[in-house]
């Protein structure tokens, strides 16, 4: 089982970003996805800056993939997409069918989690276009995944979003700008002040969702480390960890410990508690509402 680090979903300063990836280079992560996937207005990093980080990580033995925007609305978004799709050094994760259109038949690509691949026919179609790996939609369960695994085209890898705040929705509206009573066109890039997003609570104070610009995430931390055995049994090849502002390197190490069975799932989940900013959830994997937390498969009998 390989570990991947998903693209940073937040807007971080260049300094924080460079420091972060220096630290990541020294962790036991196998694959690193790089690039801005959430908002086309975020502009601190140019493609050349990402490529520099990509080369540094490659030199450290990591496989690097460049991720594309999930919501492509304008000609200038398409221009950035084409620049990424035409790079000759790194594989690309397509997060929109427009990106698949640019990549299909030209180079192997990764089918990202936002492409809505829910069944065998669609998976086979995407594989026939040159997908080398696909990322399951976050709301899919183990039961939903199994038939796709059974008829999976030869050589196609499966990746599952396994840790982090769930990327639940995209909008063209910026909710961070809305919070500040600013129009998106004059957002002043204030999301840079929220390296983990802004928590949205219910009126009784329970953490519910997280605002990250145009993206809405879960407030709870999706965590499938305790479900590792079922992921392994289902033939999942890659577990994806989504970056958070603090402790990401530690989380990668804990996942590695769990995968290599150096520690029991129960112990690793206990160790995770101190590095998770909010409580865990894993409902989706169990075919339940995503916000629910089911007990460890090894510790409890399901209904």
């Amino acid at each position, binding site marked *: 089982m390989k570990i991947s680090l998903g693209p940073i979903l937040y807007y971080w300063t260049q300094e924080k970003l460079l420091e972060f990836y220096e630290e990541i280079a020294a962790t036991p992560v196998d694959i690193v996805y790089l690039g801005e996937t959430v908002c086309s207005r975020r502009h601190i990093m140019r493609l050349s800056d990402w490529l520099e980080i990509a080369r540094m990580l490659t030199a450290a033995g990591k496989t690097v993939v460049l991720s594309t925007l*999930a*919501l*492509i*609305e*304008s*000609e200038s*978004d*398409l221009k950035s997409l084409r620049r990424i799709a035409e790079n000759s050094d790194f594989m690309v994760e397509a997060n*929109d*069918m*427009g*990106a*698949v*259109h640019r990549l*299909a038949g030209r180079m192997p690509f990764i089918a990202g989690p936002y492409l*809505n691949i*829910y*069944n*065998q*026919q*669609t*998976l*086979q*179609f*995407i594989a026939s276009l040159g997908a080398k790996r696909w990322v399951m*939609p*976050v*709301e899919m369960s183990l039961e*939903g995944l199994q*038939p*796709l695994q059974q008829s999976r085209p030869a050589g196609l890898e499966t990746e599952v979003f396994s840790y982090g705040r*769930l990327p*639940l*929705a*995209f*909008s*063209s*509206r*910026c*909710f961070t700008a*809305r*919070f500040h009573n600013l*129009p998106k066109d004059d957002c002043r890039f204030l999301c840079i002040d929220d390296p983990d997003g*802004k928590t*949205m*609570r*219910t*009126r*009784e*104070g*329970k953490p*519910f*969702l997280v605002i990250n610009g145009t993206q*809405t995430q879960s407030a709870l931390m999706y965590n499938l480390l305790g479900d590792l055995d079922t992921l392994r049994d289902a033939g999942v090849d890659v577990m994806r960890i989504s970056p958070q502002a603090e402790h990401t390197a530690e989380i990668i190490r804990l996942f590695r410990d769990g995968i290599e069975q150096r520690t029991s799932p129960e112990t690793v989940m206990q160790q995770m508690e101190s590095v998770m900013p909010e409580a865990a959830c894993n409902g*989706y994997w169990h*075919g*339940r*509402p*995503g*916000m629910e937390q089911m007990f460890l498969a090894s510790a409890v009998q399901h209904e």
Partner: protein
Amino acid sequence: MQPEYKLELVCPAGSLPALKVAVDNGADCVYLGFRDDTNARNFTGLNFDAANARAGVEYAHAKGAKVFLALNTYPKSHGSERWTKAIDQAADNGMDAIILADPGLMQYAMKTHPQLHLHLSVQGSATNYEAINFYHEHFGICRAVLPRVLSFAQVEELSAGTPVELELFGFGGLCVMVEGRCSLSSYVTGESPNNCGVCSPPKAVRWQKTSQGLESRLNGVLIDRYADDENTGYPTLCKGRFEVEGETYYAMEEPTSLNTMELLPELLRIKVRGLKIEGRQRSPAYVGQVTRVWREAIDQCMKNPEGFSVKPAWTAELGKVSEGQQHTLGAYHRPWK
């Protein structure tokens, strides 16, 4: 010779009576779904069985209107025969097009019924011409319904880059999220538009009178709380009031309806092909009223686009049936974003 350009009014039909009312009041097309999770308005008591669908097609065709089948959820591997069967049935019934989101189904439809017209559903999340052209090249889709997230300038830019006809939402409920890219509902209830054809499903809703006010909950999560003098709204979870850093407000979207009537001359100028009215879950009375108003507006605008203005009477009429009694141009008007 090019066929004459016409903006089609595409109206919702949640039942046979609604379909008839839409056709009688001037809909050019009606769209409907079967009575299961193959469509994105999978509500109890709504939609068509096989006999009703056949009767609906006959009624519409006799009066010169087209019928589209909404088959716009994503089948899971288990049970995908429900979707392919629905495609076969649409072909048998002589429906004029199927509205699809799932590539696997498009492939099936294209191979099995090559004569069927395919429309890309709004649930397909195609927000740029590269994505639309992708579906066009692989499956020959002839029309794409655009997610309600683009500004008008972006729609215009997009239309120049694709041979595919465009259909836009003109009126009705407003999704603030990109359709097909929202799992908020399954996060809370287990069911979402993509996987079950529902958002914030009624079975998960609870209303409770408390000392702090009337509370609406979705699977236990507090979506809103109303003071005695406030109008209540259905607890669609993106339209609740939440607290961010000490401020309680509609953090995602107010309960409003989309209304793009004042953009009609612009839509004609860039030759948008379909103007879609949302609301298969609404009553035949709603469908009749909205269809009548939009028919009149489109006809007037086609006759004289330069002199077109929205009549206050139309706005008043539509205001009566809007969610939250408010209208917005949504994303078509840039500052909404």
